[in-house]
């Protein structure tokens, strides 16, 4: 929601022979107020950048300046620019014009309805300023699958209790003085919930992947990962030093081909046999909403003696009869998967990640994983939140709210998806998956979709390059168990209207029932 005010009159002084165009986005230009005040008096360039509304302490302040120099400041001769201009072409020309569609701040908990803070811009989205006003919108973007994001009647009192007892942080690493009773309890609970022997906790999901994969495999090993894996897995694979190969997304036959070829060839150049092979897949892919073809992939890995690593960031707690993830949904025995990883951010409304595997592997990780030895332990109230959430899901809190939540999210996802299909949208993803991307394809439709929906008080997430390929832009909907049927119907109405307006209904819509009946009557 932007109010485009008229562009400020910009003084031509200090620009030299640069053609000044208002949408010139200057990553490599100005903004460096630190250059001024070095005892030389303010130059024309500094005054110029200051004139464009850069008060101290503002969240984003960027001025305009010369294109020739990198705008580091006048005393910085001999330094290469810190951000190369060429790297930022996409950012400058495309992303910053639609910047208001991303990073919208909120002022309440990310529940089914939340308050989105309004922002405005004086210079065509170069800088966005917060206001005090908020709009109550329907939340279709947060990862709140089971509705634990808001204050919950069972979880919140216990969390506050543990906060008072253990304080917000332990200020120390797990092996020093950071292991509390809560951590030990949660590790046992997670292992029981997921169906493995033991588990280990980390304070952040991203670090779990990137610090763990180097522990398990090093130079001389092979990692085969799905082509659409998350950035944390890619970083972990790169940081480990092993050779990385990619197989086509969700195609077990191609995985088999790659495995055969690699085992036969051996390590590159020396052709020695590989030390070990790990295949990394995800449970639900967050940009496609698809479930992984787990039974076939496990069968292939078993045949070729490769280890499997399953990342269940989006699927743990959200799919499956009792919330135990893709293994339960697809009928795979958890003992067949060597390492199961998951995060607590999405379905449990907390933060952090875990790894569940056999006792020996967990023992070894506790001894050597750097994220366990060097990183601050998970915050105790967050641990308590996960414990309470898992207890609710398993029904151990004495009520059936867990089962109700799971049934509701399944119903909601299936209803929403089928309605969107009927309207003619192109929706990706499998049944039962709470993530549904609506394809927009044309990147120019991204701001239209996002802003129109926000005007009608529905907050959606639109995804552009580089998270997806440039021409495969999409709007991603995340359904929650706290959405009621009325919320979903309102959302469908709004999306349908906006879809008609910008033309994203790429498939023919099914005609409504009463028309079919009258058609039949005529015949």
């Amino acid at each position: 929601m932007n109010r485009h005010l008229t562009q400020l009159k910009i003084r031509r002084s200090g620009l030299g022979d640069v053609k000044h165009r208002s949408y010139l986005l200057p990553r490599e230009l100005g903004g460096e107020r630190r250059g001024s005040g070095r005892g030389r008096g303010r130059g024309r360039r500094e005054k110029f950048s200051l004139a464009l509304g850069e008060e101290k302490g503002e969240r984003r302040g960027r001025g305009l300046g010369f294109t020739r120099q990198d705008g580091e400041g006048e005393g910085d001769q001999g330094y290469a620019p810190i951000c190369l201009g060429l790297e930022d072409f996409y950012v400058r020309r495309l992303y910053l014009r639609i910047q208001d569609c991303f990073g919208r701040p909120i002022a309440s908990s990310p529940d089914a309805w939340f308050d989105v803070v309004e922002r405005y811009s004086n210079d065509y989205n170069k800088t966005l300023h917060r206001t005090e006003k908020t709009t109550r919108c329907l939340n279709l973007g947060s990862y709140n699958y089971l509705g634990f994001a808001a204050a919950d009647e069972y979880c919140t009192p216990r969390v506050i209790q543990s906060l008072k007892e253990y304080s917000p942080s332990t200020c120390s690493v797990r092996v020093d003085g950071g292991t509390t009773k809560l951590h030990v309890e949660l590790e046992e609970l997670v292992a029981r919930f997921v169906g493995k022997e033991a588990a280990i906790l980390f304070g952040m999901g991203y670090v779990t992947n990137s610090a763990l994969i180097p522990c398990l495999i090093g130079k001389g090993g092979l990692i085969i990962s799905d082509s659409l894996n998350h950035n944390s897995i890619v970083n972990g694979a790169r940081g480990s030093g092993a050779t990385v190969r990619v197989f086509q997304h969700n195609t077990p036959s191609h995985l088999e081909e790659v495995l055969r070829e690699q085992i036969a060839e051996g390590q590159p150049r020396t052709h020695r046999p590989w030390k070990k092979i790990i295949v990394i897949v995800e449970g639900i892919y967050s940009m496609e909403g698809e479930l992984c073809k787990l039974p076939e992939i496990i069968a292939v890995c078993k045949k070729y003696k490769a280890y499997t690593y399953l990342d269940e960031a989006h699927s743990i707690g959200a799919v499956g009869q009792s919330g135990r993830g893709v293994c339960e949904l697809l009928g795979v025995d958890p003992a067949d998967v060597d390492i199961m990883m998951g995060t607590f951010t999405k379905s449990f409304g907390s933060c952090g990640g875990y790894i569940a595997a056999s006792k020996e592997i967990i023992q070894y990780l506790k001894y050597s994983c750097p994220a366990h030895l060097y990183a601050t332990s998970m915050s105790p109230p967050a641990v308590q939140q996960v414990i309470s959430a898992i207890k609710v899901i398993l029904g151990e809190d004495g009520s059936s709210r867990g089962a109700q939540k799971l049934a509701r999210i399944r119903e909601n996802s299936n209803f929403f998806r089928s309605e969107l299909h009927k309207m003619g949208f192109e929706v990706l993803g499998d049944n039962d998956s709470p993530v549904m991307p609506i394809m927009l394809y044309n990147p120019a439709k991204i701001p239209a979709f996002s802003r129109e929906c926000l005007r009608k008080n529905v907050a959606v997430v639109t995804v552009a390059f580089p998270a997806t390929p440039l021409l495969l832009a999409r709007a991603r909907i995340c359904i929650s168990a706290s959405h009621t049927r009325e919320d979903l119907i309102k959302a469908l109405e709004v999306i349908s209207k906006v879809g008609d307006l910008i033309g994203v209904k790429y498939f023919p819509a099914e005609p409504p029932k009463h028309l079919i009946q009258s058609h039949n009557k005529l015949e």
Partner: protein
Amino acid sequence: MASAMVNVTASVLDWVSLAFDAPTKAVVFGVPIDGHLVVEVLLVVVILFQLTRKSYKPPKKPLTEKEIDELCDEWVPEPLTPQITEDMTDEAPTLESAAGPHAIVNGKEVLNFASANYLGLIGNEKITDSCVGALEKYGVGSCGPRGFYGTIDVHLDCEQKIAKFLGTPDSILYSYGISTIFSVIPAFCKKGDIIVADEGVHWAVQNGLYLSRSTVAYFKHNDMKSLENKLEEVTRRSKHPEKIRRYIVVESIYQNSGQIAPLDEIVRLKEKYRFRIILDESHSFGVLGNSGRGLAEQCGVPIEKIDIITAGMGNALATDGGFCTGSVRVVDHQRLSSAGYVFSASLPPYLASAAIAAVDHLEENPSILANLRANIATLFNELSDVPGLVVASHLLSPLVFLKLKKSTGSDKADMHLLQSIAKRVLEEDSVLIVATKRSSLDKCPLPIGLRFFVSASHSESDLLKAATSLKRVAALVLS
């Protein structure tokens, strides 16, 4: 036989010389075609023909399906993790209360020197109240990355507060302490850039340097002469030093040794050789300097001279997460290209409000810093004559580091010795101290040792008790 060959050869030579000397039979385009021209053209044609023939290569035979099957059957992978040995089964002590200066471990009350609670903010009323308010309003988690409705107004307030406190234009919040530095370094350093780093930096920095794929040169731990030599060498070796980005990566207080980096020297060298500084202030933010603003204030260096400052908030500020601060462009660049910021869920809002309350508390009560400094001085004096151990950290560092006077020669044996000291101190005297543990992925060459984290809320008797007990146990174990 030989004469026949000679005859044949002679006749062939006669023919050739005849053809060579044949008179001009025709004129083509004004060029008389002499006999020798015909012979030369024929020779050239023969040469070209030979050149265009492919050389003989043995035919390639790809593996048949059956052979691939056999290879796959024969291949035996290593086990995923190595065999579990005795020293891998050590369990960490389990706390049953908050990690303040007095904690409860296994039912007993102990003196806690294992938490980096430098300002004593664990258990502070105001911080707990602000957290409770945040929990009731926002819930626990933020359920989304910063780009997709995970930005809550407390995050923006916290960023502004930290920037104002330090005096920099802007700052950016990360959701975990160690992910800060290993996301920042690859965001600014790419392949082809030059980095000069201290050899004693901790694992997260090493990981960031590795992921950035730049050329890294290490200098001797905290040795400014070695740094100058390295900078000189690196500048001389590169062909166009002004066109590549060059960085010096140091920590303010090194986790692995407790030494403090001499920032004024480093800034002088940086300006001489035109490098940029990336400074990791995890253990010095809120501790060093008259008002807790960190190493720059301590050394009297203006904050603008340091290009990038990162810190984890899990130490002095008694919350979790991290931040990075610098010029506006440095911060803005990270919002789109820093992996740990873009691809990860944001910091839980109650931790951000705890950070704001902690910085407020520090601004209002600068006397805690005086307490902390007095405590560090006391402990430093007391620990200066422990039998068998020597204090290796700086006298201003709240992380007091003791290493063995005489190492046994093997890391494993050293580790065993130190851990037995720590265990005995805990069991017999109820003082919780820790021996540093090294991961197998850590390449730091510095020796391991015992660590004491001094807090402003430790009392004098606590410090004396800890020192006496360590002296007693060290005398027993190391004699």
